[in-house]
């Protein structure tokens, strides 16, 4: 080779990565129109110039032979799943769809369901569904981490990842619990490395030691599903030792508020109120009581000079017995001792105590004082911002259990006791959070909101604050196909995508006509009960009609799911389209202020691919959905970029998909008239808009008057009232009261009353995951969990010639002693069996997994022929999918079915399954099981080459 050859890089275009959901800024270097090199954009706030293994492999995604290139329809008479398609024109695809959808819309709009995978375009998909008039819309949150979103937001008014996270720049102790391999990819890696170099202490609590946990100063192995027990025991210890931040609890949480304990009262378990508020609104009026230590009588909270009792019991003048919320928390955790938790978690009691002390002492003794003056919501001026430098990060390890919501409530309360919310070195919010608890968006609460030829009267997803907010029929039955916002899963704020196919197939609560799936592999790794769900997708009624009559799939890549479609719409890749990371969806905000960003095409669409957004705008125009047409009924927006610039949430609102460079000349932010040069301005500014808040608005935002008023003026929030942390959750208590027959709200159907009364506990508690309770633990003793490897984290849709060389098949990792007890040697073929089914795979001995857990990399195993891999590819022959062992429903007693989900939020309980393992017979095939008939490549797809020697542009 020649040394120091200079490379004339002809062109560099900036856009935003989409190899995972992290959304880093990238520079795409092009040579002769081909992608030469993708590196991190050093001027982007998210990744600051770095890039991960996936981002560096974008070339192999762009030029993958798995790409769909043409609209396709299932060949008449062919079975779904057989993958027999014929090419059609876009015109035929649009005509077919718009004719069918128009008929549904004018008869019963809920017969159209739109569910999307990892789309990050919910601002548009949600708008389309609402305009269509269907309640049956959600993205993938219900089977991802809705417990994390809901558990935290219903407690502290914000959550991890794009809406908040650990401030590792200032933290001294970082505790990561239940976080898979690579969550929040590059920003987290940058932050952890810096944190460690600055001498911070990093503790990882996880059944498995890989990824981030590998570089933790201490690994604390824990049994899956037991995190709640650990967190409650730590809370027990912090309270017992006085290691909580009393000043913080008093002023910024509802700890001191008095709870009505008159069991006969309709307001039992609710805070005592001084007055009924004038307007019904989603903020909390400051009308609760403290029992003042100084005057020994009840006073309005935050009264000047008052200091509430946090403990004790009192009687109001009318005889009503009351206790402060903190007293109730203390009573709750009284028996949650470290010794109790040790039995459940497998963590020695001394370790639990030590963890509690490390947290408590670090928070108390290593306080940070920043010289930032600010004013709180009650007008008190503070000279400094205080930080208690203990930070946490958590995600699916806590969330994907049926006890996850209460576990995450416990985490939020632990972070609160330490006084770490929106403070330096603790947890910090990212705009548009914090929001009221719960946020203001609501679904309709009546089926009357669904009307032929009308938009849905409300949002398809929202934040219920009491039983009257549920989206149910008169008889309490669900309005939505996934039964979200019903008595079965009242706070299912992200829907239950994992039950859509089963429910629609069974006709419970009803049949639908058309299911449109975008970017989700519901016939493989994104579904539970894979084998049966695949049958449901192809199942027909007696008259030969499919039980789910019309199935449309939009995706950029051929997959197990596209094989089941009646109509396939070929999407573009991320390098070929416009996208917005919108403040109306999930922006990329930083701790110091709101940030949103864009994707700008660096390549023209391949083949006949069309961005899904363009499909929706075309359909919206053809269906004459109000926002997509002008007064005359003609098409209003030329294309998606035109829509992004000109659409306003209501005429003249000045709020649109992008917050930056609004106003005619781009001089405004958040609100302003449409700016015809908005895309150009994003392009000139590294594809993002970053508004840096004044320093005095960057902390304590739940109660920071300046910030809240700014946020209100910017119309990020409607109200500027303080957002007190819900140590005690009245929202949950309202549901419990309804279940107990109390109060004026709706009441649940009789068969769900005890379920609601049990799980809607206003204080966190520990219970065994629901599936575990129905499992014979002697027969199925092991917990089985999954995670994605870093090199494929969140990379959901394409095979990738480079990445698959890193992970071409997966093993089941088994603790060495556990394996030896079962007579399993390293590399043996074994069976893994749950009460639902079994898979054959290869075992790998590991010392980095706790003995009661087995685990594997998820979504490495593929059905033969999927992704245009050869049918004998390792992914199909040695790789396997654990999903076959996981049910989407719990064991049923009689007719009634219930989702295998958290009873509060409907979060899919992926990690609750219990299994046993045993050696496969020596005469059995050395191949993973089950196997499926190989998928055929779809028409128009490229042939897969026998070898690659990629060189961008012409080879020298």
């Amino acid at each position, binding site marked *: *080779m020649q*040394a*120091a*050859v*200079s490379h004339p890089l002809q062109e560099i275009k900036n856009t935003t990565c989409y190899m995972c959901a992290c959304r880093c800024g990238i520079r795409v270097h092009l040579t002769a129109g081909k992608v*030469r090199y*993708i*590196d991190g954009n*050093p001027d982007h706030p998210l990744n600051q110039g*770095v*890039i*991960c*293994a*996936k981002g*560096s492999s974008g070339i192999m995604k762009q030029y993958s032979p798995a790409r769909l290139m043409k609209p396709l329809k299932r060949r008449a008479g062919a079975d779904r799943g057989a993958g027999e398609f014929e090419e059609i024109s876009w015109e035929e695809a649009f005509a077919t769809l718009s004719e069918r959808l128009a008929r549904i819309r004018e008869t019963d709009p809920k017969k159209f369901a739109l569910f999307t995978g990892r789309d990050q375009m919910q601002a548009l998909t949600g708008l389309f569904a609402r305009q269509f008039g269907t309640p049956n819309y959600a993205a993938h949150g219900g089977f991802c981490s809705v417990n994390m979103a809901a558990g935290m937001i219903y407690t502290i008014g914000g959550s991890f990842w794009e809406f908040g996270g650990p401030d590792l720049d200032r933290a001294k*102790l970082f505790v990561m619990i239940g976080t898979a391999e*690579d969550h929040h*990819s590059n920003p987290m890696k*940058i932050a*952890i*490395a810096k944190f*460690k170099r600055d001498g911070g202490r990093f503790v990882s609590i996880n059944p498995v*030691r*890989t*990824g981030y*946990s*590998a*570089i933790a*100063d*201490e690994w604390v192995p824990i049994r899956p599903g037991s995190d709640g027990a650990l967190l409650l025991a730590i809370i027990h210890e912090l309270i017992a030792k*006085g290691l909580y*931040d*009393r000043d913080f609890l008093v002023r910024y949480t509802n700890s001191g508020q008095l709870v009505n304990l008159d069991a006969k009262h309709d307001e039992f378990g609710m805070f005592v109120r001084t007055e009924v508020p004038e307007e019904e609104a989603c903020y909390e009026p400051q009308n609760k009581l403290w*029992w003042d*230590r100084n005057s020994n009588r009840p006073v309005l909270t935050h009264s000047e000079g008052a200091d509430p*009792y946090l403990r*004790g019991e*009192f009687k109001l003048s009318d005889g009503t017995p009351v206790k402060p919320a*903190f007293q109730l928390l203390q009573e709750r955790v009284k028996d949650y001792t470290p010794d109790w938790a040790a039995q459940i978690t497998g963590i020695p009691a001394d370790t639990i105590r030590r963890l509690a002390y490390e947290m408590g*002492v670090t928070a108390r003794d290593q306080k940070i004082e920043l010289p930032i003056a600010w004013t709180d919501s009650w007008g008190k001026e503070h000279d400094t911002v205080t930080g208690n430098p203990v930070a946490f990060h958590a995600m699916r390890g806590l969330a994907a259990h049926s006890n996850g919501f209460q576990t995450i409530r416990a985490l939020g309360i632990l972070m609160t006791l330490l006084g770490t919310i929106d403070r330096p070195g603790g947890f910090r919010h990212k705009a548009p959070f914090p929001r009221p608890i719960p946020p203001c968006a609501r679904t309709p609460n009546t089926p009357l909101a669904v009307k032929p030829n009308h938009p849905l009267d409300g949002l398809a997803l929202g934040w219920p604050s009491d039983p009257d907010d549920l989206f149910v029929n008169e008889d309490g039955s669900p309005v939505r196909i996934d039964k979200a916002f019903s008595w079965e899963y009242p706070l299912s704020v992200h829907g239950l995508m994992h039950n859509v196919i089963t429910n629609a197939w069974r006709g419970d609560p009803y049949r639908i006509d058309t299911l449109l799936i975008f970017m989700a592999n519901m016939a493989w790794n994104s579904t539970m009960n894979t084998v049966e769900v695949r049958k449901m997708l192809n199942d027909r009624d007696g008259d030969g009609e499919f039980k789910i009559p019309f199935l449309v799939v939009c995706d950029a890549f051929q997959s197990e799911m596209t094989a089941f479609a009646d109509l396939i719409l070929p999407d573009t890749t991320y390098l070929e389209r416009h996208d917005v990371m919108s403040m109306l969806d999930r922006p990329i905000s930083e701790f110091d202020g709101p940030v949103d960003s864009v994707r700008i095409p660096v390549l023209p669409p391949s083949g006949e691919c069309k961005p899904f957004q363009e499909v929706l705008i075309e359909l919206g125009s053809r269906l004459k959905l109000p926002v997509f047409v002008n007064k005359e009924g003609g098409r209003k927006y030329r294309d998606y970029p035109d829509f992004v610039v000109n659409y306003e949430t209501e005429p003249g609102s000045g709020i649109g998909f992008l917050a930056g460079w609004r106003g005619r000349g781009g001089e405004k932010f958040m609100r302003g008239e449409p700016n015809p040069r908005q895309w150009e301005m994003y392009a000139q500014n590294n594809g993002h808009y970053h508004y840096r808040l004044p320093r005095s608005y960057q902390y304590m935002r739940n109660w920071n008057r300046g910030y809240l008023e700014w946020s209100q003026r910017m119309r990020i929030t409607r109200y500027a009232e303080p957002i007190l942390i819900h140590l005690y959750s009245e929202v949950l208590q309202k549901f419990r009261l309804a279940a107990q027959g109390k109060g004026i709200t709706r009441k649940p159907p009789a068969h769900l009353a005890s379920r609601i009364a049990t799980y809607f506990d206003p204080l966190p508690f520990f219970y065994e995951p629901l599936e575990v309770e129905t499992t014979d633990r002697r027969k199925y003793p092991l917990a089985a969990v999954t995670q994605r490897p*870093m*090199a494929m984290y969140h990379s959901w849709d394409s095979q990738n*010639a480079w990445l*698959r*060389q*890193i992970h*071409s098949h997966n093993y089941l990792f088994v*603790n060495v*002693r556990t394996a030896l007890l079962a007579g399993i040697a390293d590399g043996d073929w074994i069976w893994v069996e749950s009460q639902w089914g079994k898979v054959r795979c290869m075992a790998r001995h590991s*010392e*980095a997994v706790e003995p009661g857990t087995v685990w594997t990399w998820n979504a490495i195993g593929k059905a033969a022929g999927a992704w245009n891999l*050869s049918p*004998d*590819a390792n992914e199909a022959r040695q790789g396997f999918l654990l999903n076959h062992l996981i049910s989407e429903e719990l064991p049923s007693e009689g007719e009634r079915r219930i989702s295998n989900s958290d009873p509060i939020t409907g979060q899919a309980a992926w990690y609750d399954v219990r299994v046993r393992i045993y050696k496969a017979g020596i005469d059995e095939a050395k191949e993973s099981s089950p196997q499926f008939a190989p998928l055929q490549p779809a028409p128009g797809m490229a042939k897969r*080459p026998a*070898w690659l*020697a*990629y*060189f*961008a542009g012409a080879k020298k």
Partner: protein
Amino acid sequence: MTQLALVIDLNVCVGCQACVTSCKEWNTSGAAGTMSDERPYDADPSGTFFNRVQTFEVGEFPDTETVHFPKSCLHCEDPPCVPVCPTGASYKRPEDGIVLVDYDKCIGCKYCSWACPYGARELDEKQKVMKKCTLCVDRIYDAALPERDRRPACVMACPTSARLFGDIHDPSSAVSIAIRESGGYPLMPEWGTHPANHYLPRRKTRLRIHDDELERADNPLKIDSQLPKPAQSEPSLDDVTSW
């Protein structure tokens, strides 16, 4: 004399493989390219990589360490791959110590890969020449690139900044300081190859809590354990005993 090298900090490497694919991505279309892939979409795909991350476990549960170990050509100061090359294709550059292969002279005999004790060389099955890390020699001197970008692709990509790049013969360079102050070590020094690349070991931060730290003067229990006093009017023995 300059000796360029990588110093890899195992204390922060999370095994994300960014260095692996960013290297491949840069180099396949670069001066050292192409980097071919056999059976890219079939069984047992196998391609050329200059850099691979090996992950292994150390110790027994629960005292287990999971180590991610990135490995590429170590640019030895006394590289055994050079003298064994029959055609002179393998050579070490005097000006910066980078070990390179001249593809025009390489006959693919593999002597060098047998000589390398680190397994750092891979025969490109398409071109039938020996390939290895070049420290992105086609980037680091490229005056057309901004100064910041004149670094190996793996160093630019690494999200945890676990890869330091510089001259280990310059005692004031960041790499020399890291080796000196953070316990940097070469691989298998007993082979006498004097690898230029070094590794920084895992380091643990612990927190020591003294018993008396749990009992502080400002403990909030001092306030919160003072429960309200009963009202004077509440019944007491005073009302009923007269003895």
